[in-house]
């Protein structure tokens, strides 16, 4: 066996000296290999990468035991800057490009440690060769790129330092199926050029495709490891991470899902879902048309999905429905009310609640407090009564805390109620956001990528939660999501957008066979 490039031995990491995130983790990356780490949310995958790239300190974590060595050197006393210079570069979760810097400047920041002009030129050439789009857009601000392009920029930026080992944290997060394939191809290319890759990936199909070896991380410990092909064949991995196939709209059957468990969500009022009619809505930003003449209808109490490539206008559409953006023309009616004429707090009063693609929670506050904020709409006592702790205010607070607890248990985050949001993993934050939206007792729920960053198993549990909420509260739901098994298993009606236009609409099996949808969105992933 060759000497390993990266060797992690018996690693333990804790946050704030208390929360144990990793224990006894062992992992090796040989030179010239691609290694994938799979695992559900909160399993500690990002923590592992941060420990390796020496950036745990930024988030209050520290290595409490074990050893990490890179190219034979112990990393214990090294900082992030040393790691980069030694050839160990991380692409952070959520891309984190510098939005106000141009593409060129982003790349330049990535090559900061390379002092030699020729080496830097070669690195630039290599990056622009891998990602020709970055050359086309080199003078644009990073923030103006689409999600897929931002991921490419983030990877290109890291490659500017010509790493020996590239650490990738969820490169497929929030990307359309076709783009996920493309990113997978690029990782294979980077590998072929001689760079080793350690990849964390929620999209296990992609992860296992590009990796030679894979590790499964569960609750902070490695539970399985082996050659990718071998792992992909085991039942456990197939059930939890790969899903059966993309075309089976069946309900899940595995045991930890709260299927058919009544959760007794109750409404405090008799509000009912109404019909949502989107008619000929167009949205322009400056010269860019984000949505053009889009129409669809959501029948009361049904689940409707909005899918399409990155930049197709899905989030724009949700933002119009929630009142964050104004439609340039066209109307949206919810029942008799014209949503497009109302400010967003009045739309919330109609019973419309939403979650955000980029998650918008109070980071320092606890999960419970974040959920209580969602109850604001249904709470009756005023600020003065609450401050004075009058009897009826205290009674209401007790009822509200019970209601919040019920929602948390539905979402499986009951044990997190007392934790500050900033200590939670991405997927758990998604759950909290969903909980906050549900807490407002909406009649129409707008979900922007509710299962981004979740494994197949977790997204199935989420699907059950959404279905339970829909049935018990009689909700209408509009969801935007790239996870096709999730969408196909849940939605009754699907609208497909591409370049701001509606290109298809219908029930899942109909949309899945639509040649236009296959071309623009699903690619070969659906075949």
């Amino acid at each position, binding site marked *: 066996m060759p000497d390993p490039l990266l060797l992690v031995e018996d690693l333990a990491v804790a946050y704030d000296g208390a929360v144990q995130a990793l224990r006894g983790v062992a992992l090796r990356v040989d030179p010239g290999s691609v290694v994938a780490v799979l695992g559900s949310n909160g399993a500690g995958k990002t923590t592992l990468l941060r420990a390796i790239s020496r950036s745990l300190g930024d988030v209050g974590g520290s290595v409490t035991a074990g050893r990490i060595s890179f190219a034979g050197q112990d990393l214990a006393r090294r900082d992030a800057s040393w790691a980069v210079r030694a050839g160990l570069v991380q692409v952070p979760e959520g891309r984190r490009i*510098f939005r106000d810097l141009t593409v060129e400047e982003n790349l330049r*920041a990535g090559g900061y440690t390379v002092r030699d002009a020729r080496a830097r030129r070669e690195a630039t050439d290599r990056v622009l060769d891998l990602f020709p789009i970055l050359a086309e857009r080199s003078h644009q601000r990073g923030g103006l790129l689409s999600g897929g392009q931002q991921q490419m920029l983030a990877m290109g930026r890291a490659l500017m330092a010509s790493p020996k080992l590239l650490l990738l944290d969820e490169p497929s997060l929030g990307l359309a199926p076709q783009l996920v394939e493309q990113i997978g191809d690029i990782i294979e290319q980077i590998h072929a050029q001689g760079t080793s890759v350690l990849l964390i990936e929620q999209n296990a199909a992609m992860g296992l495709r590009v990796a030679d070896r894979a590790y499964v991380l569960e609750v902070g410990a490695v539970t399985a490891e082996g050659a990718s092909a071998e792992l992909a064949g085991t039942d456990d991995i197939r059930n939890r991470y790969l899903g059966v196939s993309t075309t089976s709209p069946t309900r899940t059957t595995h045991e930890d899902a709260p299927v058919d468990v009544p959760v007794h969500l109750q409404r405090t009022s008799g509000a009912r879902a109404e019909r949502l009619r989107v008619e000929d809505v167009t949205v322009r930003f400056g010269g860019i048309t984000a949505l053009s003449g889009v129409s669809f209808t959501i029948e009361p109490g049904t689940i409707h999905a909005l899918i399409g490539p990155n930049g197709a206008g899905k989030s724009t559409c949700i933002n119009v429905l929630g009142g964050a953006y104004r439609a340039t023309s066209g109307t949206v009616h919810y029942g008799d009310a014209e949503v497009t004429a109302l400010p967003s707090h009045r739309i919330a009063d109609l019973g419309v609640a939403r979650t955000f693609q980029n998650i918008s929670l109070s980071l320092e506050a606890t999960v419970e407090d974040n959920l209580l904020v969602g109850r604001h709409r249904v709470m009756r006592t005023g600020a003065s009564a609450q401050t004075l702790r009058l009897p009826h205010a205290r009674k209401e607070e007790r009822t509200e805390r019970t209601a919040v607890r019920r929602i948390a248990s539905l979402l499986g985050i009951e044990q997190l109620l007392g934790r500050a949001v900033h200590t939670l993993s991405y997927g758990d934050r998604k759950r909290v956001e969903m909980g906050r939206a549900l807490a407002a007792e909406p009649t129409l729920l707008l979900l922007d990528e509710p299962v981004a960053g979740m494994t197949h198993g977790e997204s199935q549990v989420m699907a059950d939660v959404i279905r339970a909420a829909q049935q018990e509260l009689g909700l209408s739901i509009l969801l935007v999501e790239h996870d096709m098994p999730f969408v196909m298993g849940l939605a009754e009606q699907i609208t497909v957008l591409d370049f701001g236009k509606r290109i298809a609409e219908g029930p899942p099996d109909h949309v899945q066979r639509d040649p236009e949808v296959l071309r623009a969105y699903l690619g070969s992933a659906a075949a």
Partner: protein
Amino acid sequence: MTYFLTQLANGLSYGLILGLIAVGFVIVFTSTGVLNFAHGSVLLTGAYLVAILHDPIGFWPAVVVGILGAALLGVLINAVLVRNLAEPNPGTAAILMLGVDILLLTELTRRIGNRVLPIGAPWGADVIAIGGVTLPTSRAIAAGVAVVVFALLWYLFARTDTGVAMRAAAADGDTASLMGIRLSRTGATGWALAGALAAIAGVLLASFPAPGVAPTLAISAFAAIPAWVLGGFDSVVGAIVGGLIIGVVTALAVGYEAELHVLGRGLGEVVPYAVMIIVLLVRPSGLFGRKEAVRV
């Protein structure tokens, strides 16, 4: 008309000096997140060094020492105090800076006493007159120096690795450190730049028509605070534009005080803050400030 143009020219040159000071506030804020209320005494330190050294070593060498001294002082404040805060947050750091300001100012006041030290600039008290519009030579030079300094800053931030690294670190420090950019180094560079800018502004402010270096010079840095705030805390361009606006408005308010006597005397001191408040009412994040949560 010539009276108006004279006031305008004075206002613009004064505004450019305010811009130099305000840019220092911005750079310290974006590179280390500190509201640097000790900026005024750093400025005074630079000017003081020039005032005491121009006689023995000559004006230009004294200016170099003043600039380097103020830059070094900034770096030391950052390295010794700011970076060692047990719990770094903007509030604590701001109060720490107020403390540093009082300490420095007390020591400098002790040294200067009630004297006014001449700055020893070779342009003295000359005045340029073009078609009836008069401007002190010192102010014309100040404007020229400021423009050159701003051009150099633009080059630094747009064209050099250090500048791009500083902007990356300011935008997202955690991610920048994953690129191997050392935040301790970008922070030190920021403080050094701010110190140097303050020293330059100090020398220009202490020149004619001002009598020289006195402890009150530190207070003049505070006149740049409204410029900094209305430009938007984190924008260099905003700070320059803010400086120009405050400079012109102040000069006009002072120049036309007689006509505006219904508003009372001392209008020039109040007007900058009034402008700042009005701008913030309309644009809460300033003229060029980064808006919070642009995309939902």
